[in-house]
Every structure is written in C-alpha cells, then in structure tokens.
C-alpha cells in the first residue's frame, strides 16, 4: 500500500493528465456535453422511482420521498459500477501506451476511477437539489459520509486491479462482470431498504461490502439511529483486504501486460 501511494505521488502529473484526458475527451462532439453526466442518472432514477412508487410501492424509512431514498443509493452504486467497468477496459484502451512506455500501470486504473468520482460529484449536485427541495433533515453523522465513500473507493480499486489484469488475458471478464453486477444490484439495498430483508438472509448482506457501505451512507445522511459499527468494521476490513490483494496481483502480472494486451 505504501508503494501504491508513493507511485501516485511521483506520477501525480501523469495521473492528472490521464484523468483530464478521460474527462475532456468523453463528451466532445455532443451538444449537451458534460451535462449528460447529470442527466443520465437523473433519468435512470426517475424511471425507477416511477415504477417503484406507483406500481410497486416500496416503503422507505427516514420519512423521505422514495426518489430521494433511491437516488442516495443509486448514485454511489453507479460510482461503484462505472469505476470498475471503466477501469477494467482502461488497460485495453491504453494498449498503445502499455506496449511502448513504462510507468506504473496502476496510474491508468486510478485515473479512470478518479474520472468517475468527478462524474459522481457532478451528478450529486442534483441530489443536493432534491434534499433542499424536499426539506430533508440532514443528520449530524454526515461528516462520516466521505470516510465511508473513501472505503467504497478502495474496495472498487481493489476489484478493478484484479478484473482489469485478468481481462487482459481473457476478455470474458468484462462480459461476465455485466451479469454479476446485475445480480449484485438486486442483492444490495438500493431499490429497497435493508429492513425489508427477512432476518435469516441478512447475513448475505453483512458479507456484501456494498450493501453495508450504501446502508451506512444513507444513515449518515438521513439519520435514523446509530451506525451498525460491527458490520461497518467488517466491511472496512474486507474492502482493505480486497484492495491489498488486488494490488498485489496487479503488480505481479504487470510485467506480462505488454505481451498479452
């Protein structure tokens, strides 16, 4: 982990440039440009909110509108999925670089994740607007929110390291991921509150870091009791372990990237 931060520091200007390239180039030649980053999740939320508050009514806690409840989970879930998907493809997209120049390859992974964090922050402005519009009371625990988000980012980075490296050898990884994310989405309390889950299945949710983290993020924003520190602790440890193992695998395979890409 020390090596990771040192490499980021040494190559910070490269990291900055790769991230800027990722952000700048994406919505060139489109009229609305970066506005799409905000519009896409908003539409996604509106459609889901429409289905699940009109046709199938899902009761939510915290005394807030369903749309606000949904948006809070959806935004960080999107950050999670988009980070990993784009990081997994990033090594292939940067084939030309990988074959020609040496620099620590984790810079590529981190830059695509940072670009997604940037998107997340932009998309969150609309969420803030919702909070304001509905006069939602913000809990004082909200200061813990960034910490939990950072844990989530480390978890994403760890998975990205593993998946991006394996994807270079077998491209099945990127297709398999789509299906896994689909299942994972429904196994994470995004559309519904965790309270709806029967007691005997709750252990599945405790072992799913995304479930614990998204739930904890909601608690820090909307209040509604103390955080479940035991689950949170497990999730943090799990995330850091995934990060560490992922990074080790990534560095071990790095010397072969140029041969297989």
């Amino acid at each position, binding site marked *: 982990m020390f090596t990771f931060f040192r490499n980021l520091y040494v*190559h910070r200007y490269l990291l900055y440039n790769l991230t*800027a*390239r990722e952000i700048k180039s994406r919505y060139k030649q489109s009229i609305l440009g970066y506005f799409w980053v905000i519009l896409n999740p908003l539409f996604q939320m509106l459609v889901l909110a429409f289905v699940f508050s009109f046709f199938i009514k899902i009761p939510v806690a915290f005394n807030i509108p369903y749309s606000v409840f949904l948006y809070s989970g959806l935004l960080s879930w999107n950050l999670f999925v988009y980070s990993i998907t784009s990081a997994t493809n990033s090594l292939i997209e940067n084939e030309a670089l*990988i*074959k*020609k120049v040496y620099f620590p390859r984790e810079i590529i992974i981190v830059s695509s994740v940072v670009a997604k964090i940037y998107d997340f922050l932009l998309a969150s402005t609309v969420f803030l607007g919702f909070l304001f519009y509905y006069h939602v009371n913000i809990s004082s625990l909200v200061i813990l929110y960034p910490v939990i988000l950072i844990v989530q980012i480390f978890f994403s980075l760890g998975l990205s390291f593993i998946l991006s490296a394996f994807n270079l050898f*077998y491209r099945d990884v990127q297709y398999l991921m789509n299906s896994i994310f689909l299942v994972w989405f429904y196994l994470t309390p995004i559309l519904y509150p965790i309270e709806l889950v029967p007691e005997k299945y709750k252990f599945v949710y405790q072992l799913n870091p995304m479930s614990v983290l998204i739930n904890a993020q909601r608690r820090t924003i909307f209040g509604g009791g103390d955080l479940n520190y035991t689950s949170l602790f497990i999730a943090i440890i799990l995330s850091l372990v995934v990060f560490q193992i992922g990074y080790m695998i990534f560095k071990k395979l790095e010397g072969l990237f*140029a*041969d297989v890409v």
Partner: protein
Amino acid sequence: MKIIFENVTKHFFKQEDRTLKELIPSLLKGLKPGEFINALKDINLNIQKGDTVGVLGRNGAGKSTFLKVIAGVTKPTKGKVIVEGKIAPLIELGAGFHPQLTGRENIYLNGSIFGLSKKEIDEVFDDIVAFADLKKFIDTPVKHYSSGMYMRLGFSVAVHVPFDILLTDEILAVGDTEFQEKCIKKMISFKKEGKIIIFVSHALETVAAFCNKGLLIDKGNQIFYGDVKEAINRYKNL
C-alpha cells in the same frame, strides 16, 4: 549510462485458443492450449555511453521485443537486464496521443507520460512546437492533423524530453524529405552528445552511416554483436 544484457531470454506464451469454444475441444484432445515462443534467446550485450547500435534482423526476429525489454515494458523470462539512464521511447510516434485533444493538450499529456512535470514541459513547449512546425495548428484537435503532422509532433515531443537512451523503430521512414533531414540532424547531435541510441531499421545504408555498432538477431538468437560493417555483411549473408 549503459545497457547490459546477461543471458536474457524472453518467452511468449502464445494463446492459440482464446475462446472457450476453441479451448474445450483442444483440452479434450489433450493438446496444449498454446505454445511458448522464444522471442529472445540468450542475449549478451554491453552497450556503453556514446554507442549507437543498429539492430538488424528479418521481420519477426525479435527486434521490437528487444526494444521493449530495454524500455522496461516487458519483463524478461530469464537473465538480467541492467539499464542505467533515462529512456526516450521513440518506438512509435505519438503513441499516447488522443485524437480528440488539441496539439497543445497532447504535448502536455505525452510529456507527462515520459515522466515530465508541468514546469519541465512549459520550458520545452515552444521548442517542441517550433521543431514540429505546427504553430498554426497547435490548438486544433489532432484528429484533424495529417499523418505527417501527427508524426512530426510525436517525434518532436519525444526528442525534447531529456534522455540518455533513445530507442527508435523505423522512425525515419516517416514525414517528407525536409523533416527527415531535420530528424537525422537531431539524431547526429544526440550522437555527438554521447547519448546511447538504439536504432532499429531495414535501411542498411543509414545504419552503416549512423551507427558504430551492429546487433544481428535471427529468430531470437544473437548472431552477432560488434562492428556495424561486419553486422551488415552477416545480415546480407543470412
């Protein structure tokens, strides 16, 4: 600054069956899912300051792999590689360019890929633009560049990065005559400064005129390393 190879061998694992549909039948038949290819076999070299080495060999002999091992892009399977000095990889011009970004943005992007800070790029920025002769188009996205302009910018960025070792792969085959002459002049000035230049080319005359040493590789084997004239003779008799 130096480059030393001690018994360097590089295997590639060639995956012949990349998909499951191809993989399963070959597993059932008991075939291996691919084979090892010797891209480089027992290479021993000692390149010192001021050496310009022409790398000769037929297509697929392992010349590009040789450059990649020096650049640190790929790890050798066996043996030891010692590279002292900062490398400018001119293996392919404009490798890091992004078509949607402008020439200016790409200069900063490419500079940072070569390990420069913003300040260091600021210092050489005007020289890069002047050498590439692209002042008028510097704020145009590079996708609108002609391939010649693209190459010029790529070459210009690479040679303005401070380096000790220059790796080139058939780069002088690009651009118009005028730019080619400019490139050769630049390379000669590097040679005078005592930099190490590794020069992969099929243009034997240029190699003979420019290099003092020659490395001949065939099917991954080191056939000869030493005087450039001798290397060229042996290449012709291959």
